[in-house]
């Protein structure tokens, strides 16, 4: 398969196939007259009315803020905790059972307690909830990435008189970065999931809240519009993340290709 054919196929898979599916959906919903499955055109009109942009500020912006803040806290905490844990076998010995325990708990199980503990169903509770669950992929990947660093590289830095902090900054962090970023990507999709969850169960704003209100009032078109929006949010966040990753880790792709070839 030539490169050109591949590119065409890729564009087709990315755009044409979804369009065809949507067309099929429109056709089916037009004939089905189902209450639960409104016409695609109705959903799209609803989508435009709600999200472009009359309720964008009241519901989408708060959701994005929660994702952004929760994700940022999780990444910072995951890296800060992951580096010492990756460097010290002793620290891992004590910490790993606790990490494995908390990470095994499904997010809904902790939702009630966050509301009680933080005395709130506001932003603080949502950000804390999102951050807690986004922490684990970053944390575990940071630990793994730091553990996997070539000892020759660390010896080189030591022999040139780089102190521990300087070694972390110049060697440990950049060497572990590809794995940290892979963890961040998992965390980002988890952030969308936990955001919707937190907003659905306890909120007065956000796309998850819109989902709940629409369901409770049997308004199917707004509910579907919210579902479409959530899907798009997750998809676009991931695309943005991959673009940033390609720029930041260009060396990693080249290096891997050179090692493999």
């Amino acid at each position, binding site marked *: 398969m030539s490169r050109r054919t591949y590119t065409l196929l890729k564009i087709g898979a990315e755009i044409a196939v979804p369009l065809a599916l949507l067309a099929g959906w429109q056709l089916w919903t037009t004939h089905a007259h189902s209450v639960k499955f409104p016409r695609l055109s109705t959903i799209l009109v609803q989508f435009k009315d709600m999200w472009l942009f009359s309720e964008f500020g009241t519901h989408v912006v708060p959701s994005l803020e929660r994702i952004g803040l929760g994700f940022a806290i999780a990444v910072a905490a995951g890296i800060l905790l992951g580096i010492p844990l990756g460097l010290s076998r002793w620290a891992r010995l004590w910490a790993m059972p606790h990490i494995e325990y908390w990470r095994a708990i499904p997010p809904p199980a902790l939702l009630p307690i966050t509301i009680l503990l933080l005395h709130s169903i506001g932003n603080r509770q949502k950000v804390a909830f999102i951050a807690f669950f986004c922490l684990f992929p970053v944390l575990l990947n940071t630990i793994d990435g730091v553990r996997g660093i070539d*000892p*020759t590289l660390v*010896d080189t830095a030591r*022999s040139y*008189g*780089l102190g521990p902090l300087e070694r972390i900054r110049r060697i440990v962090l950049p060497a572990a970065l590809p794995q940290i970023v892979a963890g961040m990507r998992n965390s980002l999709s988890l952030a969308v999931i936990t955001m919707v969850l937190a907003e659905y169960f306890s909120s007065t704003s956000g796309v998850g809240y819109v989902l709940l209100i629409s369901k409770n009032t049997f308004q199917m078109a707004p509910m579907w519009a919210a579902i479409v929006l959530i899907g798009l949010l997750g998809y676009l966040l991931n695309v943005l993340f991959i673009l940033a990753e390609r720029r930041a880790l260009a060396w990693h792709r080249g*290096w891997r290709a050179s090692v493999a070839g």
Partner: protein
Amino acid sequence: MLELKGIGKTYSSGAKATHAIGDISFTVAEGEFVCVVGPSGCGKTTLLKCIAGLLPPTRGEVLVRGRRVDGPPEELALVFQEYGRSLMPWASVRNNVLLPLRHKRLSRAERSRLVEESLDAVGLTAFLDHYPWQLSGGMQQRVAIARALAYQPTTLLMDEPFASVDAQTRGDLEDLILRVRDEYDITVLFVTHDIDESVYLPDRVVVLTHSPTEVKEIVPVDLPRPRDQLVTKELPEFAHLRGHVYRLIKREQESETPALEATDVPHAGTAV
């Protein structure tokens, strides 16, 4: 000046103890080029790590210009065999060479001067902005050498630096290190398992025994300088010295018992 006084290294203790290095003493004079050669698995890398202050010896001490080594000394720069693993794949050639300079108190101009000078000495100024993995093996090792030079050490420690490049590149790198040593006027301690190399390069060869390692013999090499890959290697003295060192090592290998070899080999290279 570099002095090794009764260096010994034992891994673990009790019945399981492995005596990697028995007792090694020798001195490298200021500006001297000394090669260390020994049978495979004799703990050459361990010895070099002790000298570089990366690994504390169990017995004895290393002195650099009279000062006892208890951490990596500023006067020493170490060049590893595995260039692919000692260079940072995420950093350009320039930033790799900059690594040892970043925490030194130097002006920005002084830093870039050192980087450019040292890359010039190894003939790589055209590759400042390349990544190491875009270069050939021999070029990568030259980047590692440039980085060591930029650090401005009085002594260069080299751990089988040319063991993973092809024969022709190896010859070029040998001549490069001889030239650089004259230009920078530095002391070189060069560990190798290649007998030709160990006779071609230095002023003296330290021949080691098998593990627990001791100094078998120190052989002076008074071949004329500058050395030349063709002329020097055709000299009868070269052949004589080479034969002498070869016989010393061969005898060592033959006297080594299989049991000893089995316990010794895993510790030689992998000790961190």
